[in-house]
C-alpha cells in the first residue's frame, strides 16, 4: 500500500499544525546521535570528564544514548592537582553510581617523569602542561576518539571547530586544513596514532546547558551554587584561597558569598559574587548577565588575543 496524494497532503496539514520541536529536544537528539556515531565508528573512544557542568551534561547524554546498556567508553580525567575538591568528589561518586570505568592521570606525574618546567609567579597555571598528560594518556590507552564538552559559544577559536575535530599524531589542530563536515555524515576515519576530538554539545550555549541541567534534574557539585568562601581578590577577580596559587603582594584575602560559573583549575577560574542558591536563580542571573562565561571567569584566555587557538594547535582540547 502506498500513500495517495490526498492522504499525503492530509499528513502535511496535520504537521503544519503540530508545534515545532523544542530546541532543547533538538540539541539533545543531535548530541545523542553524535555519541552513538563515536561508539559506532571508533574502537577505543573515551569521554573526557572534568567534574564541570559541561562534562556532567555529556555523561548524562551518554547514559541516555546507550540506556539500558552501560556507557561503552571509560571516563578519563586529566587531574592537574589544582582542581576543586568538590569537583573531584563529584567525579568519583558519579563514576561509581553509573558503574563507569574511571581513568585518572596526573599532571604532577608527567612533570616528574618528563622533567617539565612549571610556570611560576603570578597567575602561574598548569593549563598548558595538561596537554602533555592528555597526549600521553591517549597514547597509553590508544584512544582513537576523545569526547569533550567544549561549546562553540565559549570562545572564538572554538566557534570555528568541527564536531569531529581531526588531530594529527601530535594531537595538533590545524585550523586552516579542517576536514569538510557535511550534513550529519561524520568522517571518523584515521590512521593509527591519529585521533579525533568529538564535541557533541558544540551547538549548545551556556544557557542551553543550564536549562538542560534543570529540565533533566541533574545534580551539580555544590560550588556552582552560592556559598561563603575565603578568596583572593586579585586584579578585580576572585580566586579560591588555596596554597596552589602563588601569592602576590597586591593580593587581598576576602570572604564573600560566591558561586562558580565554570569549574576549571583553581588557578585560572574565578568566582562570581552571587546569592543564587538554586538552578532557577542561577539561570535568572545568567540570563541577564552582560558578561560572557569565559570573560567573567577565565584568566587563561585573556593573556593574548589568540590564546585558545594557540593551545589547540598544540594539542589542547
Amino acid at each position, binding site marked *: 500500500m502506498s500513500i495517495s496524494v490526498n492522504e499525503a497532503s492530509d499528513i502535511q496539514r496535520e504537521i503544519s499544525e503540530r508545534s515545532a520541536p523544542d530546541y532543547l529536544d533538538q540539541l539533545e537528539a543531535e548530541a545523542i546521535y553524535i555519541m552513538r556515531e563515536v561508539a559506532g565508528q571508533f574502537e577505543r573512544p573515551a569521554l573526557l570528564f572534568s567534574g564541570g557542568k559541561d562534562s556532567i551534561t555529556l555523561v548524562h547524554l551518554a547514559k541516555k544514548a546507550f540506556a539500558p546498556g552501560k556507557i561503552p567508553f571509560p571516563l578519563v580525567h586529566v587531574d592537574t592537582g589544582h582542581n576543586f575538591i568538590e569537583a573531584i568528589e563529584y567525579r568519583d561518586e558519579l563514576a561509581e553510581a553509573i558503574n563507569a570505568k574511571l581513568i585518572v592521570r596526573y599532571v604532577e606525574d608527567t612533570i616528574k617523569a618528563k622533567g617539565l618546567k612549571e610556570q611560576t609567579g603570578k597567575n602561574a597555571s598548569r593549563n598548558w602542561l595538561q596537554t602533555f598528560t592528555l597526549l600521553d594518556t591517549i597514547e597509553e590507552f590508544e584512544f582513537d576518539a576523545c569526547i569533550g564538552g567544549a561549546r562553540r559559544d565559549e570562545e572564538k577559536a572554538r566557534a570555528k571547530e568541527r564536531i569531529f575535530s581531526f588531530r594529527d599524531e601530535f594531537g595538533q589542530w590545524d585550523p586552516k586544513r579542517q576536514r569538510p563536515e557535511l550534513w550529519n555524515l561524520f568522517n571518523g576515519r584515521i590512521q593509527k596514532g591519529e585521533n579525533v576530538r568529538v564535541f557533541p554539545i558544540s551547538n549548545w550555549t551556556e544557557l542551553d546547558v543550564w536549562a538542560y541541567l534543570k529540565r533533566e534534574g541533574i545534580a551539580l557539585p555544590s560550588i556552582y551554587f552560592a556559598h561563603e568562601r575565603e578568596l583572593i581578590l586579585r586584579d578585580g577577580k576572585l580566586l579560591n584561597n588555596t596554597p596552589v596559587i602563588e601569592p602576590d603582594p597586591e593580593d587581598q584575602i576576602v570572604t564573600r558569598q560566591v558561586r562558580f560559573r565554570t569549574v576549571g583549575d583553581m588557578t585560572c577560574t574565578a568566582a562570581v559574587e552571587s546569592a543564587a542558591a538554586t538552578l532557577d536563580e542561577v539561570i535568572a542571573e545568567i540570563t541577564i548577565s552582560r*558578561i560572557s562565561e569565559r570573560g567573567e571567569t577565565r584568566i587563561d584566555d585573556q593573556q593574548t588575543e589568540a590564546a585558545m587557538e594557540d593551545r589547540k594547535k598544540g594539542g589542547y582540547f
Partner: protein
Amino acid sequence: MDLLRFITAGSVDDGKSTLIGRLLYDTKNILADQMEAIERASKTRNAGEIDLALLTDGLRSEREQGITIDVAYKYFQTPNRKFISIDAPGHIQYTRNMVTGASNADLAIILVDARHGVVEQTRRHSLIASMLGIPHVIVAVNKMDLVGNSEDAFLEIAKSYTELAEKLSIKDLTIIPVSALNGDNIVERSEAMSWYTGETLLSVLENVNVLKDQNQEDGRFAVQYVIRPQTDELHDYRGYAGRVQSGTFKKGDAIKVLPSERESKIAKIEFGGNEIPQASVLESVTILLEDDIDISRGDMIVTVDNSPIVSQDIEALVCWMDDKKTLKPGNKYVLQHGTARSRCSIRGIEYQIDINSYEKLDEVEALKLNDVARIVLRTAQPIAYDPYQKNRANGAAILIDETSNVTVGACMIE
C-alpha cells in the same frame, strides 16, 4: 521555542561577517566583554570604526588578512526564535568550508555588493545552495549606503538575481536592500530607504516556516549502534540505536531491514531507556523488533510499504573538494551514506556544470577543486537511498579518500 540554522554566503568582502555581527549587535546578543574585545582588536588593526566582522573572524590568520577562512558558528536568540548563524567564507579557495556550513542550513542569506551586483561567487554559492536543497533563500543586497541607497540600483540587481534563480530550483526567495555597516533593514527598518516596504531581514528569519521542510512521509532509520547490555535481567535485549531521518515510527509498525529485505514489526520504541509511543523526524531513539534478525550498523530500518531505492549503481551531483587530487573515472573511494560505508568506483562524469551559465559541459575528463558535476558510480555493497531532492537526509553521501581519509566529495544522489 524552535531553532533556525542559517548561513551567510556570497562573494569575498560582500559583508557576510559584518552582517552577522550587526544582527547580533542589534538584537543585543553581544555581551559587554566580547564587545570590548572587538573594540580593542579593531583599534590595533586601525579599522577606524568598530569592525563587527571581528566577532566571527576569530582565527589569527583571518584577522591578519581581514577575510574569513572557515565557517564560524554564532548563537543568538530573540523572543520568537533561537538561531544558529553560520558565517561562511566568500573566497573561492575556501568553498568547501562554505559547503560544510551550508549542508545543515535551513536558510541561506546570499549577500551581493550593491556596487558590483551578481558576480561569479554569487552564482557559485547560489548553485550550491540550490543543489543542497536549502529551502529558503534571502538575497541581501548589501552596502546600499555606497550606492546612495538608490532604489534603481536595487531593482536592477533584484532583476538579475531573479533571472538567475529561475535557472535554479530555489523555492522561496526574498530580496532585501540592506546596509550591514549601518544596520539598515537588518533589525530596524531603514529611514534612508523609505522606498522599501518589504520585511526586514530579522523579520524574515523569525517567521520562515521550517517545520514543513522536513520529510514526514518516508520512514527511514539508519542503525548506528546495537545496544546489547548482556546483563542477567537484560539478557535478550537487543536495541537498535539511531536517529529517525525522515517519517515517523511507532509500536506495531511493519518494517523492513535493508539491504537484507527481512521483515518484522516494531515491538517497542525507547528513549533513554523508557518506552515512548512514537518517534518522529530527527529524534534519537532505540527501536526493538519482534523478531530476532541479524541487524548491524549500516543497515536501515524502513516502513514496509514505502521503500527507498536499493542499488549499487548511483548517479549523483557532486561538489569536489580535494585540492590535491582530481576526480577521474576509474578512481576508487569510500562512500559514506547514512551509517553505511562502502567502497565505490567512479564509472563516469556525465557532465560538469558551468558556474556562470549553469550550462552542462560534456566530455569532462577530471574534476578539480570546487567543480560541480554529475557523476556515475558503482558501490561494492548496495545502498538504500532516496533521491536527495525528495529526501535530504537519505539522499546525501560523502566520498572519502582511501589513503588520506579526508572527505573529498559531497554527493547529492539523484
